[in-house]
């Protein structure tokens, strides 16, 4: 199932340079669209492709674009979300480092479809070295008239700017990101209004993930119909998976949607099996925010079907026995890993990253961390386990942004599937 759509050019020497990228077919899709298609036709191809947002939520990209307020006479903005801070996720970094022009081309195509003249790439500040790489790519594209005024002689003009964050996971949440881009603290906004109506500077705005926007290039290149034939059902195309933890070959892999999880973990082409020939204990399949699953439930669903890398299959069984594809951050734990310690560790992450606006999230994450710390350090009480479940439940759904849920799910799922381990820590 190894299928390179996004990464087909990744091993070409020097592909980061404009000339090399163009020699290998790069910027053909941009030329094809700008000279031969209307913006509506470009959007139509994206709708046909079935592409869903690769930032975590899996929302259909074409549908999101159709919500953009086109009646407003204010400028419209496209913002590329390159904040990539969800533990276990490092695919966008790889894509931007290896193929910066693929992203720039995707931004040109998407801006054309949306009628956008200014696009910002919001990138986490720790990726400082990528700011230079992206700015160089933008500079090259501009020199070759793929950016700037009257691109390729058409009436379409576009500027792209790279904007660094400064260390705050919450700024990956799209409205916090917009606040941050306006030079403020990254406090998520209350929705509605949605960014499609009131986004950056109160103007209509689309926020999409790096991988999503880079994929637009592939879709225009091969056609929306052809793209939609890849994958299974509503999980079309390919997905970048970033695999880490106790495996032989951590790294970024492009898979066609529908690859069985078992193949992904054990095949030499991907993770190459568990390190040191240990046994698989558990997997967090979509970045630290999604529920953890024990070995049996990540390999097969509760109904005994093989678990596949699709949005639907990973969610099968919902919160009782399923999880989510999320960002594709695939974290593997071997038999020696301590689930209690890891749950404490991740809760410390959410406590640190909570922006503090809503009391259930601000107080709940701190409280859970304290309890998990004492369980991990041998001072827990049996009643702590149910207390954790109760706190998690009280956070879930009661906050301004989904960080609250993201903090609650890892705790709730770890206790659901590994309660014994918590009890043994307390005994």
């Amino acid at each position, binding site marked *: 199932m190894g299928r390179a759509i996004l990464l087909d050019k990744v091993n070409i020497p020097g592909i980061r340079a404009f000339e090399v990228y163009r020699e290998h077919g790069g910027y053909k899709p941009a030329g094809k669209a700008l000279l031969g298609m209307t913006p509506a036709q470009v959007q139509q191809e994206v709708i046909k492709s079935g592409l869903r947002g690769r930032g975590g939520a899996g929302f259909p990209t074409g549908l999101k674009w159709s919500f953009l307020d086109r009646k407003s006479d204010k400028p419209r903005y496209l913002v590329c979300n390159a904040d990539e801070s969800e*533990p276990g996720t490092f695919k966008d970094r790889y894509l931007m480092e290896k193929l910066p022009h693929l992203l720039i081309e995707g931004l040109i195509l998407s801006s054309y479809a949306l009628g956008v003249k200014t696009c910002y790439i919001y990138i986490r500040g720790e990726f*400082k070295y990528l700011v230079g790489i992206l700015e160089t790519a933008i500079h090259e594209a501009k020199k070759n008239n793929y950016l700037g005024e009257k691109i390729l002689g058409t009436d379409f003009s576009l500027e792209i700017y790279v904007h660094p964050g400064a*260390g705050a996971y919450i700024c990956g949440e799209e409205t916090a990101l917009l606040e941050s881009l306006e030079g403020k603290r990254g406090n998520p906004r209350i929705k509605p209004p949605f960014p499609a109506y009131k986004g950056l500077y109160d103007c209509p705005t689309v926020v999409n993930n790096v991988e999503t926007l880079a994929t637009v290039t592939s879709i225009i290149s091969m056609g929306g119909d052809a793209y939609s034939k890849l994958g299974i059902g509503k999980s079309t195309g390919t997905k970048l998976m970033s*695999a880490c933890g106790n495996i032989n070959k951590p790294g970024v892999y492009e898979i066609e949607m529908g690859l069985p999880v078992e193949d992904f973990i054990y095949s030499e082409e991907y993770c190459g099996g568990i390190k040191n020939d240990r046994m698989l204990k558990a997997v967090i399949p979509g970045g630290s925010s999604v529920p953890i699953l024990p070995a049996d439930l990540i390999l097969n669903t509760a109904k005994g079907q093989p678990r596949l890398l699709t949005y639907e299959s990973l969610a099968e069984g919902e919160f009782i026995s399923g999880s989510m594809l999320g960002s594709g951050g695939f974290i593997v734990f071997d038999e020696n890993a301590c689930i209690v310690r890891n749950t404490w560790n991740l809760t410390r992450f959410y406590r640190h990253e909570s922006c503090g606006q809503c009391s259930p999230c601000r107080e709940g994450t701190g409280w859970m961390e304290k309890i998990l710390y004492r369980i991990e350090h041998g001072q827990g009480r049996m009643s702590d386990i149910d207390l954790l479940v109760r706190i998690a439940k009280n956070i879930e759904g009661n906050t301004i942004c989904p960080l609250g849920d993201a903090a609650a799910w890892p705790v709730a799922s770890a206790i659901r599937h590994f309660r014994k381990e918590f009890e043994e820590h307390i005994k």
Partner: protein
Amino acid sequence: MNTGNSVNHHLFVRENKAVSFSDETLEKVRSLIRRYPEGRQKSALLPVLHIAQEELGGFLSVDTMDYVASLLNLNPIEVYEVATFYSMFYLDKMGKYVLEVCHTGPCAICGGEDVLQHIRDYLHIETGETTPDGMFTLKEVECLGACGNGPVMQVNTEFYEHMTARQVEKVIEDLRQKQGEEGTSKGWAEQFS
């Protein structure tokens, strides 16, 4: 975000020093402001604070923050509230090299906890402290987006990956050797074209 359990006895450092960018950097700051719409110069705050921290003493003193506020036509409080929110901005003097070690799950299960402890033992400092010679400050940070290459740390925003106890010793000794020399990596201002 300072919602942690630690309590600082002071938040800001005022040095009562006049600070200013070089002409070249000022030109860069003006071009950064032009990236945002008229009247939205506040948007340039994060990039300008990165440059300020790097070029004006390695941390954000009140003097520096007030200077940035004047450049962007902001009230000083607008700069303070941002500087206190983002973890990459330092409000206190740092060592010449800031070792930022990732302590989040994926790095932790791949040996990150041992690497962190080894640095503490090797430099005889705890997290948050600076060596007496002013060379190294140790910080723990959350996921750096490089989990496949863990354990990961950054030194003055440069990535060091696949760390082991032996490796970090080598990194530290190499940094000691090149004392005084400038790093080879591009600074913040040079990142923007």
